[in-house]
């Protein structure tokens, strides 16, 4: 974990610091004078040796300081905190959609293995995996927002101001972000359940004369869900990447949108801080999922 975080920090550092030419020149554009570029490079500390800069940066991170925005001078951490609400809610709702659609779809497919239902569910999940999320989002906007006028197409209201309205703003984005993950989860739960249904204890349960319903729900599905937990963990990374795109489609003022804005404004300290935080969240979630996985399934112990 510590090693992973060190690698993450180094990659983020290298990203910004080992640019061919001067970063000041990149930020200021072709019209800047050499003097202006030199001043900005000095302000960013870019005129110091690379190793010194890396040390200073890690020390700064260790104090919990992510740096300051180049444009506004505000701390990156504060800007980030201001944008957290829609992103967290979006991720939670999208995960709900993904699990709520994915697990039942996969379960039905496995129970009806090698029937039309199974084939149809595989087809649906193939479509779900292949559909580009920004296109799905635009189509939902067109259908539910512009034609049917059921839901707002863009924007956001803080939960503290109007929770109901906030939810209305988040429905379409959550569906957009959740569906591709639902497809992934459906495929995994189908495969897991098929595997479990071949196990001896399922045969035992059946030969005891248990109703098929109780065999499925009490013996098979519960065990099949264990590996699914790890897919949900993997999908957090997918969600955070997807949020960048989806927040942009629906004009949600979240972390993903902040990332795009920072890229457009060439606010490098901001980009650096955001990328670092996103990768850190993914790494922590993956670790948590690994731990949860060992807890749920004592047969598996990681070396």
């Amino acid at each position: 974990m510590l090693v992973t975080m060190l690698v993450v920090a180094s990659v983020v550092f290298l990203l910004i610091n080992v640019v061919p030419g001067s970063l000041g020149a990149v930020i200021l554009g072709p019209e800047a004078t050499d003097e202006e570029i030199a001043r900005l490079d000095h302000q960013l500390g870019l005129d110091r040796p690379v190793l010194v800069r890396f040390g200073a940066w890690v020390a700064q991170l260790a104090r919990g300081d992510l740096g300051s925005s180049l444009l506004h001078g505000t701390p990156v951490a504060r800007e980030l905190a201001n944008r957290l609400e829609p992103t967290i809610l979006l991720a939670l709702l999208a995960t709900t959609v993904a699990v709520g659609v994915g697990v039942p779809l996969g379960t039905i497919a496995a129970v009806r293995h090698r029937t039309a239902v199974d084939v149809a569910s595989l087809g649906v999940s193939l479509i779900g995996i292949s559909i580009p999320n920004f296109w799905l989002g635009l189509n939902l906007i067109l259908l539910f927002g512009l034609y049917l006028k059921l839901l707002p197409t863009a924007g956001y209201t803080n939960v503290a101001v109007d929770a109901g309205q906030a939810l209305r703003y988040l429905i379409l984005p959550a569906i957009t972000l959740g569906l591709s993950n639902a497809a992934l989860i459906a495929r995994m739960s189908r495969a897991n359940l098929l595997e479990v249904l071949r196990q001896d204890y399922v045969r035992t349960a059946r030969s005891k004369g248990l109703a098929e319903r109780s065999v499925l729900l009490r013996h098979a599905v519960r065990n099949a869900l264990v590996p699914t937990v790890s897919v949900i963990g993997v999908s957090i990374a997918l969600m955070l990447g997807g949020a960048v795109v989806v927040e942009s489609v629906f004009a949600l003022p979240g972390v993903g949108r902040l990332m795009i804005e920072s890229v457009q404004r060439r606010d490098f300290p901001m980009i650096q801080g955001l990328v670092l935080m996103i990768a850190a969240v993914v790494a922590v979630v993956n670790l948590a999922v690994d731990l949860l996985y060992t807890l749920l399934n004592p047969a598996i112990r990681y070396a």
Partner: protein
Amino acid sequence: MSPASNAIPFGSAAMPRPRRTLWHHLSGHPGLLVGSALVGFVVLLGVLAPVLATHPPQQVGMQSRFLPPQPGHWLGTDHLGRDIWSRIVYGGQLSLFVGVFVATAGCAAGTALGLIGGYSKRYGEITMRIIDGLMAFPGVVLGLALIAVLGARLSNVVFALSVVYAPRIARVMHAVVLELKEREYTTAATALGATGTRVLARHVLPNAVGPLTVEFSFSFAAAVVSEASLSFLGVGLPPGTPSWGVVLSEGRNYMLRAPWITLLPGLAIFLTVMGLNLLGDSMRDFLDPRLSGAGQMRRE
């Protein structure tokens, strides 16, 4: 990741393979058939773009703005009067270029890293740690950051996406190499006195080609989506480029007036990606029927 998808035992050992014609293979696997048909169609469109396009993709016409699909402009025109069909056909060429390049570079780097990771204990540990770290970045986020630093150009998009997908391929190849290393024939070769390099080149690598083709197909698909996403976000290819993502994003503001500008390029991306995913997935089933429908396809 579940144990099922972690170690991927490809090409089960003792299965006798009856010699059959290509058609026999295809007809038993509808996914393979549909997948290759879709991919083949897109490749054909891209290659024949100069012939198939009815207009130059950049040709602006103020009299022909927002035309719905009709003879002459059979997929309609955009807000500058550019022909959507021609732009989609040339966009296919771009997507193919990006996809092939990223998948090739990613597979080459990924295989090299996977081989090191799977074969050398000392370097393997370090390599896999670095790869774990790289995997913590969601693809779009790493791609965005790289392009922000390097500048939005085709070459940089291709480079950034190769950096994004190489570690993901390396992970899979690492698992494959670990698996192949334990096979009897590898041990036999070592026992016969073959050097490590020879075992790698003659026994491990040829048997890794199957899974590698599957990875190629999936990273191709992922690269097409990622390029479109980045271009859609305005940080991939420059505005005006006939790329599917750019065409789509330029039509965003006119969705109610001219929905075909956003619908059609999106459909092109969707069908291409579905074809590649179907192809990769059926190839995997073909190589190891036990995993049917189990594996993951998309990586971010």
